[in-house]
């Protein structure tokens, strides 16, 4: 009865160039690798040609960063802070442009890039700008490491850039950053922002490309620090390749987070938290609440509410301001989600999705719930990185904790209860870097983030996030 008319955010605020070079030593330069294209995953239209950085290009970028390190690291912290504050303010001023570009390149709904990603990106730069002249009070030393080689994923392209660049620069390091191959555009717009902020050349270098470019960054002998966010599989390769080199490493890898709902939870809000936990950003979230552990006594009621709620999710054009679920980032990721979901059915779990129209073009996967999932199923153990929720039940708090911890990962977890003592008892026993209670996927630059076990090591964000960039 009440159909919302299309409410598209205008594309006119962004000016996408036909092709982009690498950002090295404060300038855009050609890459010597073979250029690749980046597409809009919601329509499969080509957005731009992107230069690929060869090992030689990466070497030039590292040299530029090394040269800039001399002056940047010697600059008083208060001066470095001015640049970071300036970058933060420009990000705020150009937030709409960045949000639209992020949604075009990544496929995430504009509501999320506008209301979540961009405010957090600016907040992260503001936060670390504040640390730049106070490093001696942080307790991790005051000397920067040198050149940081940073490789980031495609799920939160600009936010992951902020998590990497802001603390590195605040501590006096210079960076060579490789954005994901499917989502390079906001990093390249960020390079323009660095120019606009008059950041000294070479402090930030952006090299685009695929895995080979990333390997060249990580393996470059003059890189002092490697920071990686992405899959556990690649994280293992990186750990192996830097072993014995003296490079400092932080890895933020996969997850299979348990979202535990006790029988006394605030049900309507728990349903919202489950939805936000696994369907936010199409489930392309390393800390997604992909395993729902619900107390058996309320499982039927909770699932009925959850299914009703999923019926109201709006999937479609990421630029429509009313869209809740956007496009899957790439054909390869869609194939992986499909494969694991089909596996879930074969293993005997029951699959459910709300009726939802799937656009003709682009990469789409409907919000999906699997019930009757056992710990032994692959969909309960492997990271799907898509809008797929596995539902398991438990009987007692002890069993909930046991099942939650029974995973090779340990990035995040959620606890839903109105009883504070049970909440604390549970949180104490969960082996996960972040435990949310009565909320999920909430981020703040002041709060450290990172994993246990195969979810990686090192912390990003907060005072703890400085440790990785100081000695």
């Amino acid at each position, binding site marked *: 009865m009440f159909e*919302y008319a*299309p409410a598209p955010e205008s594309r006119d605020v962004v000016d996408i160039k036909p092709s982009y070079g690498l950002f090295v030593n404060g300038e855009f330069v050609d890459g010597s690798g073979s250029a690749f294209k980046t597409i809009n995953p919601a329509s499969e239209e080509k957005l731009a040609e992107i230069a690929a950085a060869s090992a030689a290009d990466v070497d030039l970028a590292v040299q530029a960063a090394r040269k800039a390190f001399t002056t940047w690291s010697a600059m008083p912290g208060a001066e470095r802070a001015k640049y970071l504050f300036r970058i933060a303010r420009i990000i705020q001023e150009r937030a709409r442009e960045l949000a639209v570009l992020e949604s075009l390149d990544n496929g995430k709904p504009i509501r999320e890039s506008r209301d979540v990603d961009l405010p957090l990106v600016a907040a992260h730069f503001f936060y670390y700008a504040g640390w730049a002249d106070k490093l001696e009070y942080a307790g991790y030393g005051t000397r920067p490491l040198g050149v940081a080689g940073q490789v980031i994923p495609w799920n939160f392209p600009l936010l992951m850039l902020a998590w990497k660049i802001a603390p590195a620069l605040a501590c006096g390091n210079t960076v060579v950053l490789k954005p994901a191959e499917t989502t390079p555009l906001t990093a390249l717009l960020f390079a323009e922002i660095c120019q606009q902020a008059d950041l000294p050349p070479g402090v930030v270098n952006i090299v685009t490309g695929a895995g080979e470019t990333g390997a060249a960054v990580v393996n470059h002998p003059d890189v002092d620090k490697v920071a990686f966010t992405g899959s556990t599989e690649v994280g293992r390769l990186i750990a192996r390749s830097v072993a014995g080199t003296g490079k400092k490493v932080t890895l933020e890898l996969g997850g299979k987070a348990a979202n535990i709902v006790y029988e*006394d*939870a605030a049900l309507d*809000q728990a349903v919202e938290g489950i939805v936000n936990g696994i369907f936010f950003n199409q489930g392309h979230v390393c800390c997604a609440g992909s395993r729902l552990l619900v107390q058996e006594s309320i499982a039927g009621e909770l699932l009925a509410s959850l299914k009703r709620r999923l019926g109201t999710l709006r999937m479609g054009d990421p630029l429509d301001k009313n869209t809740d679920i956007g496009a899957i980032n790439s054909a390869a990721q869609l194939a992986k989600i499909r494969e694991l979901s089909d596996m879930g059915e074969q293993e005997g779990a029951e699959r459910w999705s709300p009726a939802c129209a799937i656009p003709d073009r682009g990469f789409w996967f409907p919000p999906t719930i699997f019930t009757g999932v056992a710990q032994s199923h692959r969909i309960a153990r492997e990271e799907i990185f898509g809008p797929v929720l596995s539902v398991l039940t438990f009987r007692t708090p002890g069993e909930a904790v046991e099942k939650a911890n029974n995973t090779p990962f340990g990035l995040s977890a959620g606890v839903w209860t109105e009883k504070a003592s049970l909440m604390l008892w549970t949180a104490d026993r969960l082996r996960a870097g972040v435990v949310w209670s*009565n909320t999920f996927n909430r981020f703040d630059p002041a709060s450290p983030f990172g994993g246990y076990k195969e979810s990686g090591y090192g912390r990003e964000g907060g005072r703890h996030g400085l440790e990785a960039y100081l000695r």
Partner: protein
Amino acid sequence: MDSFVRVGDARGVSTLTTDVASSNAALRGFLHGLPGVDKVGADARAAMLGTRSIKTTAKRQAIDLAISMVDLTTLEGADTPGKVRAMCAKAVHPDPSNPDVPRVAAVCVYPDLVAEAVQAVRGSGVKVASVATAFPSGRSSLEVKVTDTALAVAAGADEVDMVIDRGAFLAGDYLKVFEEIVAIKAACGSAHLKVILETGELATYDNVRRASWLAMLAGGDFIKTSTGKVQPAATLPVTLVMLEAVRDFLATTGRKVGVKPAGGIRTTKDAIKMLVLVNETAGDGWLHPDWFRLGASSVLNDLLMQRQKQDTGRYSGPDYFTLD
């Protein structure tokens, strides 16, 4: 807890009522056994729904729907027959220059002016609602409240907007609140009963949810947020919690109850946010004046102004809309 009925269990409302209203302890057990409301989460959900962008055809549809849901209200000590007649004329023809503007749902007045209102809206389809039960505080005896209600009904009120005894509710005497609602419902006869919770005085969302269920169990046809005399009044999260309550009550008992946010709804944007909340919480089954009302007065002119803007592409000044 024996009396706890999980949402989704189809049980008749009368069985449920007999079970839970047998004593204060049983009633307390039931109301406190309802799932809690997490304030942070409820606020966040309401705020997120407030970002929905309703444009073009959807906006036009929403404006007309909102106009048809307005309970045009005057509840002042200075109300006179003349004031009420003028408001009723506006209720029947909100925009005299534009006959395709729908009439509002109802006019809402004090009991002594019901007769005047009934005469003024006769034949138009606009309902007459009257506040009653020692409105707005409700601080009087049950006898007085019943008499107040009977007065309004005898004068021809189609709907009665009662207030609950917030003092009794906050003191934990749920049975007293329940029995008063039952008594007023009986005094209403065929008139529809709206139960005003005065959520600004109940303060917590847990209380709002419990008072909503209490009012529904006792036979209220509508649950209404506020008198308009207390701030905060009809906030988005309070309305959200009440919409969840009517949705769950229908699933549990099979009986559908309406919702009326009242007080603080001033702009078209406010009104449209309410409709979005209904649409995505209780569902479009509630998007009808029979099931959702907006207690307001000043919002009507803003709706008319926005409607004209949609038609002509221009805003006209406030002098082009009548002040009644």
